[in-house]
């Protein structure tokens, strides 16, 4: 761990964070708003990378965990008017419970079966939101009365701080012995088990950590938006974006996932003039990265550094 604080990656990250923290002094509120969303999205992608990149589990349903966190926080605030912080905490807790419920059957199955189970979880959640429209606002969305703050600068700093802390914890976890065991069990579960590691326990832990950060980020995001809707936190398209972000940035790097998410949101904004083709272009770029640079942005950069 001490070596990390002397490494190049640490100084580069520190410089980026310092520059990012001073952005509110010289960029417009519009850019800040964009980056605020991108940072929350970055946490989604990093939590997903912990499961996919390290534990080797294809989770097609990141939005199941995000959506449970977001809607729990939103409904509690909307129905009972509890304070924002309590709602956010309970949202994260609900996501962890949902993660456990999902993980127990899902971890019995592997590969595509696991992927399908998580995909089905999203579809079921989406159906329930629409069916219980009285509580959830249905397809129109849920209005959330409270916000954390209306100051765009403070909102931006909260998102940045949250992302940096999450990144530190998730990256630290991925480099710790637990991360190594996860990686081993993702690549060869039989051998990792033969070495005496309890694979199920480690994967369950990864699932809980991933669920916690996804839910927390989802809950904070709805309090920033002031609304929760299927299209912003549950829809499969949102989940696909999370996956694309993590793959673009580089799997198994955690930090790359955040870069990928920021790139995706900013690129989507730049491509706005192309109208409906924006999604096409982003998917095509992502496909090319998958085909020709399977390591992603950060993977390519790190491997070059490793060679030189």
């Amino acid at each position: 761990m001490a070596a990390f604080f002397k490494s190049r990656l640490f100084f580069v990250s520190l410089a980026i964070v310092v520059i990012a923290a001073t952005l509110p002094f010289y960029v417009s509120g519009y850019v800040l708003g964009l980056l605020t969303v991108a940072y929350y999205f970055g946490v989604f992608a990093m939590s997903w990378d912990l499961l996919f990149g390290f534990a080797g589990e294809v989770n097609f349903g990141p939005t199941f965990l995000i959506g449970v966190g977001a809607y729990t926080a939103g409904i509690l605030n909307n129905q009972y008017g509890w304070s924002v912080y309590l709602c956010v905490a309970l949202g994260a807790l609900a996501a962890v419970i949902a993660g456990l419920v999902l993980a127990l059957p899902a971890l019995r199955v592997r590969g595509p079966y696991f992927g399908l189970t998580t995909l089905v979880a999203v579809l079921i959640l989406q159906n329930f939101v629409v069916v219980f429209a009285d509580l959830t606002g249905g397809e129109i969305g849920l209005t959330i009365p409270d916000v954390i703050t209306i100051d765009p600068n403070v909102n931006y700093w909260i998102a940045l701080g949250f992302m940096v802390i999450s990144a530190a914890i998730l990256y630290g976890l991925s480099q710790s012995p637990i991360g190594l065991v996860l990686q081993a069990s993702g690549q060869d579960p039989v051998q990792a088990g033969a070495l005496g590691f309890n694979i199920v326990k480690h994967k369950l832990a990864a699932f809980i950590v991933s669920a916690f950060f996804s839910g927390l980020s989802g809950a904070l995001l709805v309090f920033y938006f002031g609304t929760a809707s299927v299209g912003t936190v549950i829809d499969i398209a949102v989940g696909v974006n999370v996956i694309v972000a993590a793959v673009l940035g580089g799997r198994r790097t955690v930090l790359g996932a955040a870069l990928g998410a920021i790139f995706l949101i900013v690129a989507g904004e730049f491509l706005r003039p192309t109208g409906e083709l924006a999604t096409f272009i982003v998917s095509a770029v992502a496909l090319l990265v998958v085909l020709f640079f399977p390591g992603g942005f950060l993977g390519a950069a790190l491997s070059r550094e490793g060679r030189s």
Partner: protein
Amino acid sequence: MLAFQILIDGFAISALYALGATGFTLIFGVSGVLNLSHGAIMVLAAVAAWAAASVLHLDTYAGALIGVAVGMVAAFATYFAVVQPIQRSTRIANEEKEIFVLTGTLLWGIMIQELIAYFFTNNAKTVLPIVGGVVNILGVRTPKNEIFTAVMCCLAIGLLWLLVNRTRTGKAVLAASMNPRGVTLLGLELTRIYVVVWAIYGILAGIAGVLLGMFLGVSSYSVGPLTASAFSIVVLGGLGSVSGSLIAAFVVGYLETLTAYLVSPAYRTIPALLLLVAVMYIRPQGLLGRR
């Protein structure tokens, strides 16, 4: 009366599901590929049939044939542009190829979906049926198109069965699904078998797409749900087992029809999804799957 209605409507839907899922499971059984662009290929075929009839003013038969041909071309494009490069890549570790194929075909499907939306808008399109009119079966007014759909699906599945079990090519395909190395040792080119399988898959997906376009109509929004339903049916039946998929298609089709008629159309998909989760708990390999 209602019982017959459910029986007839459920049969047509189930047959369509079965046809859509058969190609999907065939690809997985033979080459181990889960093609997540499946829904996009089906919708593309349907939209091509629609465009041939409404934009180029061809007759419905020509339109349907063009739709099926487009489905086959799209399947080849998927194989040569996405699946094969990933399978041959030296930069992707072997045990990760499955995950990359899933991600790659998912992105490919989104690209097709967005192109359809860009050129033909998101509006729902209904392909002009080849046969029109209604007949009265046991007191249920049934569109002839519905009967046509069911008959075509059964015919296509029957032909596939003949092809796989009674022809030399089919036997090679079957052998490749059991033991790829053995097939190579017997002097058969594995890549050629895969190309044949993708061609069969493209034709099946094309027919299913065009029939779906005639029966229910399609839009670029149906891409995701179509892939998800084929995926669920195939997993429910057991990955790679064609007969399992057929049974699962009828279970899902009738469950949805029953829910839609007896409870509410809004809850249509929920029981099938819950059933799928239950099967995952109790029998993760599906109804007829091998582990």
